[in-house]
């Protein structure tokens, strides 16, 4: 009896043993790993003489001053060198899309050096000269429209250098709620097999090729003063705990933890308490270049939802960068979108990573059976592979359109891609009558691309940063999807005034969205401005230009929008040289950082003595919160072969031992 059951029991025990060894030892391996990381890890780097030097410690302090619909933000980056050598800090960081960066101040001890705007290559040359001569210097380059980098040279032992970067931004407004986003980290971008024309080689050496993030060495504090000109309610920061205090003109908001790790974007929203009147804001700034105006106007809302049935194509990103919380949010958003479909509507789902797949080849009716099929499909989506957006997008846009339905493409992604221009071109050329709605997912989606894509696609951009926001944000999106669109918006200025608008066209608007326009006028305007548009019927409003308030920054905001337009024109065929010759003078005139201009500050007093070496440190960005890394970029690269050998050897030894022992026993036993 016993002998028969022995073999299977041993097999079973061995299987358990192997699983147990695997599971039991992994945590120990983890613990050891952490220790090794500290002693020999990548954060400790060596200088030319073989001494080890830490990368500078970095604290980022953000101060936002919101008045009405314009925010002035100052980002102060403190580079602290706690080594005993001279170092250079290199740091790549995101700023909100469409921020007009116009200020650089470098603070060394008591002294402040104000940066100047220069052509990009020239700025880099000035910086490199200063660096070689041992002078303290810093430079700010724009890498992509929402990606910047600073370099700070000659930070002495134990010294701190503050680099303050200032920008202006128009506050987002939607359905009466104002909001600001401040990106704090970058989701690494996927570049499909295409060359990007981006960037000159002179600053290629500033690119970190390996990012080593250590949250302990980077922290951020945020303070925002909001003066909305009216009492505020619902001051909300969905991703960070904040404290809110009343001030004279409004409220002051602070991060509760003023040493927060920069691992997720900061968002702040608030609602001014206003009476029923339509909101109008009109500001002006006269400069040598002319009169600049900023207009925000809330158009009248149509009460009735549209009755046309919809045909919705959901496109969902299941690439590796979506691994972790992002894919959960995306699934929740998609399920939410499916649940809002009416029986008369039609739909399909396309998922994409390195390849794409359609749930139904073309949109099908939203019957309970088709929907049940879709729910199952969506629940089984998981994130892996690359981000090949283009083929998926083309498939969605190429699907046969029905004349009775309103075609809407809902695109759910973190857009962690670098081939934005190529995608924009595809959207412009292939969209037809369809409308494109983008839904940004995760701790740090590529907001610049998603916003531009939605604008080109005559849709809207929705940002969802956490799973418990899905319900509300998707609800707002649905309201837009089913409300009438405001079209044919026109502005009529008093006779003789030829405005240069930026953005060049207002486009169509959805329920709750205000008209926001910046324009440059040849001279100050007086009289009445007439705004007209069309929803279910035509409407017209008149605004007196006499009530315009002066406000600094309006000119810079106009120039930033204009530069954005000129850069976007590349997607519709403008050559690189033409773009450069248009943007460069504008950026220099209005003192803005752009693809062709940078800010540079040099402290003329030499700091580093001759002969002392300077070592360069790249400062990494922290990993976006909730992103599962090993899933993408760092595959598991160990086989169980060693383990197999170890267990096998152990078992063979045991068998041998047992065999010898039984033989000895048998020999001793009397026959």
């Amino acid at each position, binding site marked *: 009896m016993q*002998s*028969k059951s022995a*073999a299977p029991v*041993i*097999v079973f025990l061995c299987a358990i043993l192997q699983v147990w*060894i*695997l599971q039991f030892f992994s945590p120990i*391996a*983890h613990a050891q*790993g952490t220790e090794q*990381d500290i002693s020999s*890890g*990548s954060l400790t780097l060596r200088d030319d003489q073989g001494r080890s030097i830490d990368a500078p410690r970095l604290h980022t302090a953000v101060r936002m001053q919101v008045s009405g619909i314009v925010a002035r933000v100052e980002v102060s980056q403190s580079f602290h060198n706690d080594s005993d050598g001279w170092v250079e800090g290199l740091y790549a960081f995101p700023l909100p899309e469409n921020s007009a960066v116009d200020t650089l101040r470098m603070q060394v001890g008591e002294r402040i050096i104000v940066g100047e705007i220069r052509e990009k290559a020239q700025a880099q040359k000035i910086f490199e000269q200063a660096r070689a001569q041992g002078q303290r210097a810093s430079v700010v380059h724009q890498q992509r429209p929402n990606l910047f980098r600073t370099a700070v040279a000659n930070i002495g032992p134990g010294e701190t250098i503050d680099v303050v970067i200032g920008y202006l931004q128009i506050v987002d407004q939607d359905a009466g709620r104002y909001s600001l986003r401040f990106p704090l980290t970058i989701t*690494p971008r*996927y*570049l499909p097999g295409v*060359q*990007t024309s*981006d*960037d000159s080689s002179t600053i290629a050496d500033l*690119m*970190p*090729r*390996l*990012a*080593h*993030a*250590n*949250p302990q060495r980077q922290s951020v504090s945020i303070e925002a003063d909001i003066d909305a000109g009216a009492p505020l309610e619902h001051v909300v920061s969905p991703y960070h705990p904040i404290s809110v205090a009343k001030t004279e003109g409004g409220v002051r908001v602070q991060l509760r933890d003023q040493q927060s790790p920069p691992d997720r974007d900061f968002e702040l929203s608030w609602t001014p308490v206003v009476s029923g009147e339509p909101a109008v804001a009109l500001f002006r700034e006269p400069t040598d270049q002319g009169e600049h105006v900023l207009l925000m106007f809330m158009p009248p809302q149509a009460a009735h939802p549209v009755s046309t049935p919809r045909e919705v194509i959901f496109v969902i990103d299941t690439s*590796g*960068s979506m691994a972790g919380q992002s894919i959960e949010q995306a699934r929740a958003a998609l399920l939410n979108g499916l649940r809002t479909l009416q029986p008369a509507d039609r739909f399909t789902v396309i998922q994409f990573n*390195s390849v794409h797949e359609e749930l139904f080849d073309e949109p099908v009716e939203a019957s309970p059976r088709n929907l049940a099929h879709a729910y199952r499909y969506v629940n089984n989506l998981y994130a892996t592979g*690359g981000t090949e957006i283009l083929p998926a997008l083309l498939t969605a846009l190429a699907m046969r359109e029905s004349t009775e339905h309103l075609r809407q493409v809902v695109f759910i992604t973190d857009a962690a891609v670098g081939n934005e221009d190529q995608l924009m071109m595809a959207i412009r050329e292939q969209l037809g009558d369809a409308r494109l709605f983008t839904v940004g997912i995760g701790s740090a989606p590529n907001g610049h691309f998603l916003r531009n894509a939605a604008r080109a696609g005559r849709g809207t951009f929705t940002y969802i940063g956490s799973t418990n926001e899905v319900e509300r944000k998707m609800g707002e999106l649905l309201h837009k999807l089913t409300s009438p669109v405001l079209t044919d918006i026109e502005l009529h200025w008093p006779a003789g005034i030829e405005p240069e608008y930026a953005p060049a066209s207002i486009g169509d608007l959805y329920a709750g969205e205000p008209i926001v326009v910046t324009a440059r006028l040849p001279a100050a305007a007086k009289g009445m401005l007439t705004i007209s548009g069309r929803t279910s019927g035509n409407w017209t409003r008149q605004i007196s230009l006499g009530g315009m308030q002066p406000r600094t920054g309006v000119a810079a905001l106009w120039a930033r929008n204009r530069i954005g337009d000129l850069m976007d024109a590349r997607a519709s065929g403008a050559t690189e040289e033409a773009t450069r010759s248009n943007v460069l003078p504008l950026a220099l005139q209005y003192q803005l950082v752009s693809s062709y201009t940078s800010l540079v500050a040099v402290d003329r007093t030499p700091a580093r003595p001759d002969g002392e070496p300077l070592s360069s440190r790249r400062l*990494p960005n922290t*990993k976006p919160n909730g992103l599962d*890394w*090993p899933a993408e*970029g*760092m*595959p*598991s*690269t*160990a086989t*169980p*072969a*060693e*383990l*197999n*050998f170890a267990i*096998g*050897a*152990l*078992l*063979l*030894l*045991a*068998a041998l031992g*047992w*065999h010898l022992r*039984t033989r000895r026993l048998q020999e001793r036993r009397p026959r």
Partner: protein
Amino acid sequence: MKARLAVVALAAIGVWQVGSGAYIHAKAWLAQQLIASAWARTIEGEHAAKPWPWADTWPVARLQVIDRDIDLYVLADASGRSLAFGPGYVSGSAPIGAGNTVIAGHRDTHFAFLRNLRPGDELEIQTTDGREWRFEVDETHIIDSRTERLQFDDAAATVTLLTCYPFDAIVPGGPLRYVAVADLRNRLPSH
């Protein structure tokens, strides 16, 4: 009787375990031999030449470290299935010469040589168009995949070889990775 059965069972499982380990190594070696002929076809212009009819991956580059007698074929992806046959190109990283190219391999088979790689060592990489590229190892270090990440975005032309760390750990699946970063030196003229 029962004791002998138990001994035989123990020994059998021991052999099975050793065999599994040996199989992993044998597969790793044999696959590279098969991939060699697929690579020859790739250089002649065949697109995505499969090393065996049911393969779901194909070679995209040849990686040589002349001084260390290393000659490997890099596969199109870095999934667990492909890594058993050869080092894999990490999707999302740049194509060779256009940024940071990341190649991952098993620390105990193909990429076991990484532990001996030193700054100054030369890598030669041949791409599918037949061109050869020379890279020089610049630095090696250890990263923690839980908190750190590789930068793929517009870096200068580099190749990052990646494998698991520590090299001698018995149990697979730890969070540490060992990387060797090599800078582009020059491109050799194509044949």
